[in-house]
């Protein structure tokens, strides 16, 4: 088991290397020059050349890449062109809100998807099932920025329960202020989880061991939650894990709408200013995050499903 985890962590390295190479190249391919951006209207050709030299942009690409990797190996992300600040510091301060937002979104997704999926599977083809399925289609189809605004209008302006936007100070305030943004993401994500859960629950409920359990006289709740659900949950969790990439990406939009100072916001701002080192650093961090979350999802599978455990051992 430990070996399995270690093996997966080791595989993280080539993934990280791949990410750095791709981002490094891509970001330098898009039009726009950080030197000119920094100089603004004072960008005479001489000053631009001097600034490019100052930022190290006049060296050949492969030299720039090697310098970047060498610093990275020493744990140094470099300094932001725009802010001048050490990027590790910048990333650290922005990482917190994003992590909280992601975790919160996952929790809310499960809070919505689990009961809804259970309800739909148990009341299959009845009114409740149809309602849930329609709700799922609507939820996955609505764009996240629209959902965000509607939630703000409803729960922050018309009925002023939550703040309109922002992050607050202090952890309880963070949790309260992040409810609407997390809910926005959850509304898009829950339908996918709940449909997978519904499908696998229906399959589980139709299988032989459930008949046995019922025949044994076990109460309905035990049959459902103790026997059917554990077998059905694994695909649902897998679906959640597969969509983590989407989840991380959607933080960019949600953080902008709700003014949350997270990595998404940092990413958007640094792309706008062509702050290459920050873009590289944030992409790397987000990429590693996605890989780690996928690993966590697989570990959840191991935890939940003894059959997978046996395979791995």
């Amino acid at each position, binding site marked *: 088991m430990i070996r399995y985890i270690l093996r997966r962590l080791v595989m993280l390295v080539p993934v990280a290397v791949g990410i750095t190479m791709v981002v490094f190249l891509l970001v330098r391919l898009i*039009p726009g020059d950080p030197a000119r951006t920094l100089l603004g209207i004072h960008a005479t050709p001489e000053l631009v050349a001097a600034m490019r030299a100052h930022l190290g942009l006049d060296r050949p690409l492969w030299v720039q890449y090697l310098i970047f990797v060498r610093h990275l190996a020493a744990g140094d992300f470099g300094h932001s062109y725009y802010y001048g600040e050490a990027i590790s510091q910048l990333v650290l301060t922005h990482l917190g809100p994003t992590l909280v937002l992601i975790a919160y979104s996952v929790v809310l997704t499960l809070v919505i998807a689990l009961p809804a999926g259970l309800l739909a599977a148990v009341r299959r083809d009845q009114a409740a099932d149809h309602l849930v399925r329609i709700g799922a289609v609507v939820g996955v189809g609505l764009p996240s920025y629209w959902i965000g*605004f509607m939630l703000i209008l409803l729960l922050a302006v018309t009925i002023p329960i939550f703040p309109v936007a922002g992050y607050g100070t202090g952890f309880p305030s963070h949790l309260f202020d992040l409810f609407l943004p997390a809910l926005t993401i959850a509304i898009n994500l829950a339908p996918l989880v709940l449909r997978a859960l519904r499908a696998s629950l229906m399959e589980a409920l139709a299988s032989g061991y459930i008949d046995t359990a019922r025949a044994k006289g076990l109460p309905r709740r035990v049959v459902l939650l103790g026997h059917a659900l554990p077998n059905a949950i694994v695909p649902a969790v897998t679906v959640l894990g597969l969509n983590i990439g989407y989840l991380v990406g959607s933080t960019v939009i949600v953080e*902008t709408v709700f003014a949350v*100072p997270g990595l998404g916001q940092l990413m958007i701002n640094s792309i706008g200013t062509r702050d290459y080192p920050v873009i590289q650093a944030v992409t790397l961090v987000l990429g590693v995050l996605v890989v780690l979350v996928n690993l966590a999802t697989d570990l959840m599978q191991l935890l939940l499903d003894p059959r997978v455990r046996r395979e791995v051992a």
Partner: protein
Amino acid sequence: MERNRIGGVSFWPAVMGQGTAGPGAPGVGRRRLLRAAGALGLAAGAAPLGLSGARAATPTRGGTLTMARVADVISFEPVVPTDNMSIWAKLLVFQMLIRSNQKGDGFVPDLAETWEASADKRTYTFHLRQNALFSDGTPVTSADVKFSFTRVLTDKDSWAASLYPTMDIATPDPHTVVFNLKEDWAPFLAAVSTHAACITPEAYFKKMGASAFGEKPIGSGPFIMQEWHKGDHILMVRNPRFWDPTRPYLDQVIFSVVADDNVRMLKLQSGEIDIGSDVPFSQIARLSHAPGMSVQLATYDRIDWFQFNVKSPKFADPKVRQAFNYAVDKQAIIQAALFGYGSVPTTFLPKMMDADTQDPPYAFDLAKAQALMAASSMPDGFSVTCTTVSGDTVGNQVAQIIQQMLLPLKVKISITPLEGNTQYNQLATGKYEMAWGYMTSDIIDPCELIAYAGAGDEGSDAVWTFYNNTKVNALAKQGLSELDPTKRAATYLEMQRIIWQDAPFLWLYWTPARTGVRANVHDFQVLTTGNYWIEDVWKS
């Protein structure tokens, strides 16, 4: 000032005053401005745009003011950053020797209590306040002033150095600073009031270094920068050692970052914030009627345009460019895209000191436009690409309107929205035919904007239109050293008329600064340079 939130142009207020405050009561000028803004064609119906509370009541001490702005500060280091957010925040933490007044036509004391110039205007002497202290308790001395100015003049990343003449700075005693100019320099006082010339404590700055100082600044201004949560908000508290014991009234000021326009306005409406900057044009009328708040419109030195690349054969002939200016109905655009909150420009500069406001604008005259096109080098019209910034609703709307308005000239415009930085970079490398642009000012003297957008030999190629008129260039230089204000105004007027005829831009409109303010906030005002004197603000 900034352009596209990247880089900046500064232009600073008129220079010619010497001594103390500008004329007139600030309140009167302000009301006149608002009425003028109203007269410039408000949307149908009376939209009551109020001042945020007249100064009838006595200011109350205490309270926290929360203001939401579109972006975060980059650094509190005064010399290098050119983005508005940094500029307008640092002006709460530092003082300058003098600063431009609220009307934007003169200077008032700040750190310097009084000042005088020699008869030949080559020697300027500033007398500092005796009781001025930095927030850490150390006294502000002439050595700190000299240090601060030396940084502006010599730092390798300083953008403001070109605003100053060759000069040396003497400090005969701890409260006197003498500038000895080596050449005639008309905009000297304006240069001194430039936001880059904030006074920083020499010892502390040297100990920290520029980067660390930018994170933990110390100044002698009304507020102290206490906490900075990057990307989220900045907390400033009252400076108990500020030279004026009656100011500031507020205990705390919070600048929060809310990039999305709609969300910012919603926060203002719900009372979560006290002031919201940059009210979208489409929401001004609605928000003016919202309970508990009002929308302030303030004269703001800004002008928007579409610019031509005059190196392109399509735009090489001035008749073509003039035809464009005649064919576009600017007033209609202001009504449609700005809901009436703007005015038609009469010069290439924003409406500021020495701007030509006496000559008529380009009137909407389709017949004249067609005649000009027929007589030009492109009588059969042409197709042209026009770049805008994607996500800029107003700019793209205006582009579409212009697309229609230019059809009678047989000009077919294809609009290409580009990501902000990309659009700007294409502009700045001359890779465009027609592009949207604008400029704003930090200060009220026009000479730097003239160097940026008028003169063709000052490094920016006239905002990369590549317009280069030797007479204009000569007049621009002349204006710098012309000490007589009347003659200087005449020089600049002649220059503006030439540029107006040559029309390297399709000038669109002058727009006001639009700020939403809650009703319990008093004496808040946006100056013509876009900044705000929060030490005067109080809450009831």
